[in-house]
């Protein structure tokens, strides 16, 4: 695997990046007014969250999206303001439950897992499907 060095996370500023996540609760990335003045360190919020007010974090459960790199217990970054298209990974509600799957609009609309062990979910008559938002990133911890 080839890795590109994209920058250094400054040590003295580490708490400024990570600590608010754990202590102050998430706020799903409201831009902090101070963040504009910090120059060099890399801000994971900025990288992962484009629209804070519309972004929610959701925990993935199960192996059905392994092929897309979403492992069990991964944290999904879900942006409700992005309109999903064919092949988008989405969080949807079906039968009163949230699921994370790939949205297929053709040939027939369905929610497609990225793991051959799981069957696709077709939307039957009378079943209600609501797309909650588009998954823009998954955070897997090792």
């Amino acid at each position: 695997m080839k890795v590109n060095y994209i920058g250094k996370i400054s040590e003295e500023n580490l708490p400024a990046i990570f600590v608010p996540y754990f202590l102050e609760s998430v706020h799903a990335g409201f831009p902090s007014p101070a963040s504009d003045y910090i120059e060099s360190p890399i801000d994971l919020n900025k990288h992962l969250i484009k629209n804070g007010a519309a972004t929610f974090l959701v925990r993935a459960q199960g192996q059905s999206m392994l092929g897309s790199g979403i492992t069990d217990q991964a944290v999904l970054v879900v942006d409700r303001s992005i309109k999903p298209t064919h092949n988008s990974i989405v969080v949807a509600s079906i039968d009163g439950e949230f699921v994370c799957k790939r949205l297929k609009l053709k040939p027939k609309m369905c929610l497609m897992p990225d793991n051959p062990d799981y069957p696709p979910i077709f939307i039957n008559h009378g079943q209600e499907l609501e797309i909650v938002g588009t998954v823009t990133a998954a955070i897997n911890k090792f």
Partner: protein
Amino acid sequence: MALALVDCESFYASCERIFRPDLKNIPIVVLSNNDGCVIARSTEAKRMGIGMGVPWFKVKKDFLSQGGEVFSSNFTFYGDMSARVMNILEGFVPEVEVYSIDEAFLGLDSLEEHYNLYDFGCHMRSLIRRWTGVPVRIGIAPTKTLTKIALNEVKRLNVPTKVHQISTRQEIREALINTPVNEVWGVGRRLTEHLNKAKITNALQLAEIDPQHIRRKFNVVLERTVRELRGQRCLNIEDNISAKKQIVVSRSFGARVTDLKTLRPIVSNFAVRATEKLRHEKQKCSQVSVFVRTSPFSDHKPQHRGYKTIELFTPTNDTRDILMAAKQALLPIFRSGYDYAKAGILLSRFTNETTKQYSLFKDPNEPKENSKFMEYIDQLNNYETQIYFASQNTRSWSPMKQNMTSPKYTTSWYELPIAK
């Protein structure tokens, strides 16, 4: 000339539904602290006849047997959802006044020439719905008082878009005729009685009285209301919210408290929390009041209410000073032999943290004046550790029963919603 009032529909109940798709069309109620009273109802719950503010025990059996879902209040979660809605509004509208956790006034004057405001309102509504899941209603009108009336019209006319604009003379007239005078913003119950006696029952009748006359007969506040009803703007969008004037921390107890040994640590907890809020507001206070009372619902038991205010010579925001004052206030008002049901602390008479006024005489209880120390305590308490003062109750915040709270979906790593 146009303002708007954005109001989140059944806000707390709507929030509870966002991460619970299984609750679609299910009646939801949210209870006050301690699960005492119903403080929010979904449309379905309103339709079942659950009143606002009714004691939970009165409707519990009926509500649950009909498949309703109940939640203790989860203000951490509602606060975050509210901040998201306000954040979106601030992104699209130049002037936003956050009026409460679920209401905001918008100044639309500068948008009026570029947009059809009704369409703009519909757009904002659908955007907020899609981005956050929160349903809102929007009333658009020339004055703040009229935006409230436009909002009521959404309900009366059952407007499907949930957005209503009143701007022409005719539209305003029509809305005012259909608004009972007690529903006008700022007209309370006593005033309604007065007005009804004078044969003023709807908002149009009130609007048609000469404001000068109102001022002489009643007061300036009602005169302003009348002018606003006539479309003359007296209240503007206030985007710099003035600093708080007082801080209250109080709770009803889950179990009755009868002895000082239990009560004192609880009041100390309130004092610590209130002082944290005070420092957060960057204020100092020079009045500390403590109150205790028995339950008004148990009328066969002896009743007692106690209230005492302690004046501090020098303003302070040091927890140790406030704890001392709270103790001084509590001891004389506590009486043994009563079942206390509620207590609280009120900090008032604020001065800015940085200004200092010296007393002419030496203050016998000179404040600790060690702001660095409190700063450290606050910082530590923001982390996982918790520093307690000796007089506090360390086991729980107060003997509070609240056991139907939903997860902190948006603010805790451990309580995120789950997708399979």
